[in-house]
């Protein structure tokens, strides 16, 4: 049985680097655990002592507000000590390598690193070089993976739709550059949705994307036809420079989610977005703020899901015996 870097010898989740390779059962266990943590945030005293005495370092080589903040809140609600480090690009230009940075922080007896980095594979590299008692959560590496985002999206879908097997899901936007899309795709295929489509112009669809188990679609109205869940992606404005799309106007016309396009989806379809949104570029405000939007609940759920991941990884109670493929 091939375990991969994320699991220890006993088959327990040791790091969370990517959703690829996680079984349906593991994902559902994380969602169930998150369910139990959501209520903590609704209490008067929003703290449980699960990770008391543990040190969590949020190590962000790339700027982020939302993800870093929710990780910080999650760790604090679990009573861990949290340090936030924003390592700007300049410190790497001082000559310190990524592994040097990690080794220095490790020497300060860190238990968990939450890492965001602009390069695909950075979290894997770190995980391969830390001692056994140090855990890594990937908070986004290049275009590769953003597993906690993927998991909180699954949590959101389950909250609003119940189960996954009958769902038709569409992911819309810059699939090529999106770590969020890759994590969503791995999660949704593991959970066995009925149909998964990715919608984008050819310039923003990766080569051989169908090998990931999705149906590529270049026509948005056709792609949205009858879907139960619409997952929008953020479009970086610098994509205009790489000759990937002509203009914001044309992109919005073809791939922006408007009430008209939304009408092609199922009547009770939900609309998601990982944030931050570009209103008027990938999504119309009428949809973002409309009754089918679950964009703000996504953020709330993100805290519970990140608490669950931290608790499972550090508590060591991750998987039920025989729970893996």
């Amino acid at each position, binding site marked *: 049985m091939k375990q*991969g*870097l994320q699991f220890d010898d006993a088959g327990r989740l040791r790091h969370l680097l990517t959703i*690829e390779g996680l079984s349906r059962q593991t994902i559902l266990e994380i969602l169930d655990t998150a369910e139990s943590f959501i209520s903590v945030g609704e209490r008067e005293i929003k703290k449980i002592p699960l990770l008391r005495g543990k040190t969590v370092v949020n190590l962000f080589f790339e700027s982020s507000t939302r993800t870093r903040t929710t990780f910080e809140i999650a760790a604090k609600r679990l009573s861990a000590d949290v340090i936030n480090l924003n390592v700007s690009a300049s410190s790497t230009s001082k000559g310190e*390598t*990524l*592994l040097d940075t990690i080794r220095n922080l490790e020497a300060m007896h860190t238990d968990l690193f939450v890492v965001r*980095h602009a*390069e*695909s*594979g*950075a979290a*894997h*590299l770190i995980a391969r*070089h830390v001692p056994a008692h140090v855990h890594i959560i990937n908070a986004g*590496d*290049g*275009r*590769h*993976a953003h597993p906690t985002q993927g998991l909180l999206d699954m949590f959101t879908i389950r909250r609003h739709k119940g189960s996954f097997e009958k769902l038709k899901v569409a992911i819309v936007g810059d699939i090529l550059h999106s*770590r969020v899309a*890759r994590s969503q795709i791995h999660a949704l295929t593991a959970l066995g949705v009925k149909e998964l489509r990715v919608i984008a112009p050819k310039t923003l669809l*990766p*080569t*051989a*994307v169908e*090998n*990931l188990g999705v149906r590529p679609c270049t026509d948005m109205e056709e792609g949205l036809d009858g879907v139960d869940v619409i997952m929008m992606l953020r479009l970086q404005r610098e994509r205009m420079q790489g000759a990937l799309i002509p203009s914001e106007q044309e992109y919005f016309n073809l791939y922006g989610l408007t009430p008209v396009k939304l009408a092609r989806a199922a009547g009770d379809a939900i609309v998601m977005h990982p944030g931050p949104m570009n209103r008027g570029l990938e999504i119309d405000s009428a949809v973002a703020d409309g009754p089918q939007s679950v964009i703000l609940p996504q953020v709330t759920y993100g805290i519970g899901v990140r608490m669950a991941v931290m608790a499972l990884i550090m508590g060591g109670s991750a998987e039920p015996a025989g729970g893996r493929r």
Partner: protein
Amino acid sequence: MGILIKGGHLIDPANGVDGKKDLYIDNEGFVAGVGKAPAGFKAGKTIEAGGRIVCPGLVDLRARLREPGLEYKATIESEVHAAVAAGITTLCCPPDTHPVIDTPAMAQMIQSRAWRFGLAFIHPLGALTQNLEGKRLADMEALDEAGCVGVTNALVPVTDTLVMRRAMEYAATLDLTVFLHAEDPWLRNHGCVHEGEVGTRLGLPGIPEAAETVGVARDLALIEQTGCRAHFCNLSSRRAVTMIAEAQRQGLPVSADVTAHHLHLTEHDIGDFNTQCHVRPPLRSKQDRQGLRKALKSGVIGAICSDHQPHEPDAKLAPFAQSEPGISALETLLPLTLKLVDEELLALSEAIALLTHKPAQIIGADAGHLGVGATADVCIFDPKARWVLTPDQLVSRGHNTPFLGWEFRGRVTHTLIGGKLVYQHATAS
């Protein structure tokens, strides 16, 4: 007093020899007899080669020795030791050293450094343009005089098509072979893996096949226009070799090589970001590997080379795209080629031809054959010895190889250069 290599199976494809034959080497370092002793031959030393293959010393068309300029990675001294331990007696080094090999002094310096160690011969390739900048032509005649066996801009693209045309015309004037790394730099962009399934899964920027085919198409058109003789280095895609095959059919003077690792690995070997598989051009799909193997079998590709690129460990300890490309590959050149024999793609003599006289022909070097009168550069290997590659066995300063842990069959036991025994494996008698 000469050397007798006794009881071995001699394979010398250039002379059509493939059988049990003793090899007699005179005291000047030349082959004096094949199969039977020349008159009055006295062996001062006998190498027992029973059960072993005796073949010409291997000729490697591309190895970076890192000197001058990157001595923290490797040196000429460290790498010529690795070469002879791998049975390689002749190798070519590209001009992308620091400083660049664009002057006769640089070309001579590298050869004289190698000469001092008396191990593998090094034939430099001269720069095609000054400082590889793709603007002004290098002094090709002077480089030729100084011992360069061809000219190339190495991995630096000549983006100005007019400069490329002029460079080819000028090389043709001097009857020099132009070595080409055909690649369209805009299509390569910031890519670091094959644009395909694995790059998509890992979110790594891809280099499309078209980066190679567009480069090959442009260069073939210019070769046709200028009549220059050209050698395409390091082909990686099935479609590119098809284009070379077609050009050869039309009679264009073009040859091509492939690296041993592109014949064995694919994009899938990258797994979860294995930076040891970060090479340029990238490892491509299974179909591409199959296309390269077919072209090797059919003769479209005329040489297997190591494309040796030793690195210090830190060069690979970075996120994939930021790690430095290249494999320390001298010592797996023969073992990986012999694997193609085990896999029944090539006959043993065909495999040896691709490592000896065929690459020697491409650089016009008098090497890679063992007829009477030839310089006695000899590689002896035990074709049955099974071994597993571990870091401590590597002689090269660079330990960056994805083949650690691979089991190989066939191991070099002795290497002779100019009739001198320069390497003997610890277990060999």
